[in-house]
């Protein structure tokens, strides 16, 4: 009994402390180092933060370079698919164009009216745009995020909104000197205040870790009001992080069980360039 316990202790000691097979560090030293880094990181220890920023700068660029061949193949595949479905895409676009032409006329009028009304209450929204390239969009089971090639050097700040064309995509959660990380709306930890139109209901849109979001924290009977109508989800502007009215997504129709599921307007897997935007809402009062 005692000898088997001794064997176990010897095996454990040898596994953790012995620097066999030309290893430069013992396992125990490295495990201890990773635990120290983890602990100091959780307490926001400055040295670890600097180490992280340093590693970020090098790793993001390296990851971008390493992924060039794979991205080339991925883009080639997308291009091929587009070529093969050219006729179908053309037909769909033609229908969409006609529809949009009609909507444009109404929108122009509404825009002017909106502008006049804002002037009337002396409210102005000023935005600052920074265009950024997506350098890494590595999918992770833990975090749905993208790395952008603009950082504190370009006045990027925490919490700034990320917009693809006119659609909201996410917000900045980490800023380094030359790059930054944006958390996508589809991430499990993403929660934004939204407005459900045309019902004018306030809610919270949460990420699911997949390519769609869910509407939460709203009155339950809104589901009955929807029926077959398409609902559009916009930012509500609550919390002052995003301006109100940024389109986010629409509900997936004709699916009774999935009425609170929101399909995002922007395809987060195809992001190449995005806009980093900060809004200043001014009031004359």
């Amino acid at each position, binding site marked *: 009994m005692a000898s088997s316990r001794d064997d176990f202790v010897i095996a454990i000691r040898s596994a*953790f402390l012995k620097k066999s*097979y030309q290893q*430069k560090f013992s396992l125990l030293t490295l495990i201890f180092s990773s635990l120290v880094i*983890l602990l100091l*990181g959780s307490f926001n220890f400055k040295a670890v933060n600097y*180490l992280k920023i340093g590693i970020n700068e090098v790793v993001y660029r390296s*990851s971008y370079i390493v992924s060039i061949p794979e991205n080339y193949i991925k883009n080639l595949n997308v291009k091929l698919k587009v070529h093969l479905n050219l006729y179908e895409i053309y037909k769909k676009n033609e229908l969409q164009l006609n529809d949009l032409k009609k909507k444009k006329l109404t929108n122009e009028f509404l825009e002017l009216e909106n502008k006049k009304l804002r002037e009337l209450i002396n409210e102005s929204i000023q935005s600052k745009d920074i265009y950024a390239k997506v350098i890494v969009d590595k999918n992770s089971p833990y975090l749905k995020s993208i790395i952008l090639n603009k950082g504190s050097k370009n006045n990027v700040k925490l919490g700034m909104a990320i917009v693809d064309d006119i659609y909201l995509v996410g917000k900045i959660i980490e800023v380094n000197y030359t790059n930054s990380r944006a958390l996508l709306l589809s991430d499990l930890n993403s929660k934004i205040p939204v407005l459900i139109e045309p019902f004018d209901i306030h809610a919270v849109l949460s990420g699911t870790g997949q390519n769609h979001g869910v509407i939460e924290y709203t009155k339950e009977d809104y589901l009955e009001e929807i029926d077959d109508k398409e609902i559009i989800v916009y930012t509500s502007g609550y919390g002052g992080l995003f301006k109100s009215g940024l389109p986010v997504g629409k509900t997936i129709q004709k699916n009774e069980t999935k009425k609170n599921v929101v399909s995002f307007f922007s395809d987060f897997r195809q992001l190449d360039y995005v806009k980093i935007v900060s809004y200043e809402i001014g009031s004359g009062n």
Partner: protein
Amino acid sequence: MSSLNKNTFLRSLMFYLPTIFLFLSVLNEIDLNYLEIEYFSFNFVYILIFYWTLKNPYYLSYGSIFLAGLINDVVTGIPIGISSFCYLLICAVTAYLRNITLSPNFINDWISLLFTILLVNSIQVMSLDLIFSIDVSYMRYFINSGFTFVFYPLFLFLFNNLEKKIKIQKND
């Protein structure tokens, strides 16, 4: 002379192949640990580390595994140090297995891998969810562990062949 240089280069390249695979898989955008297929993903890095540190740690140093873990944390955006800790735990298990095993057996290794993955993933989920308050999908981890276990024999075959080639190159 040039062929001699070429040979030396090829030999050292083959020698560092497991390390190159490790760094490519943590740096590359294609992550087998998170494929966009529902209910399918497996952790290639776990298999890679488990195989090479169990069979032949000479080709994959603990220092490079530690560094790869740090890089993985940075790229995937989780608190820095978690992946390193998990990867090194796999190394600890394999080092222990190497010490207590006299005649290596495939079934024993395979079952040990299952135990190791479950242990490492449990620690990772607990630390992410309970300590760092990052929401994680338990089902995804469960599926990931299952497929990592199932795919081990396939990679065992591939890595065995690779190891043979490395040894041939070394002895040339």
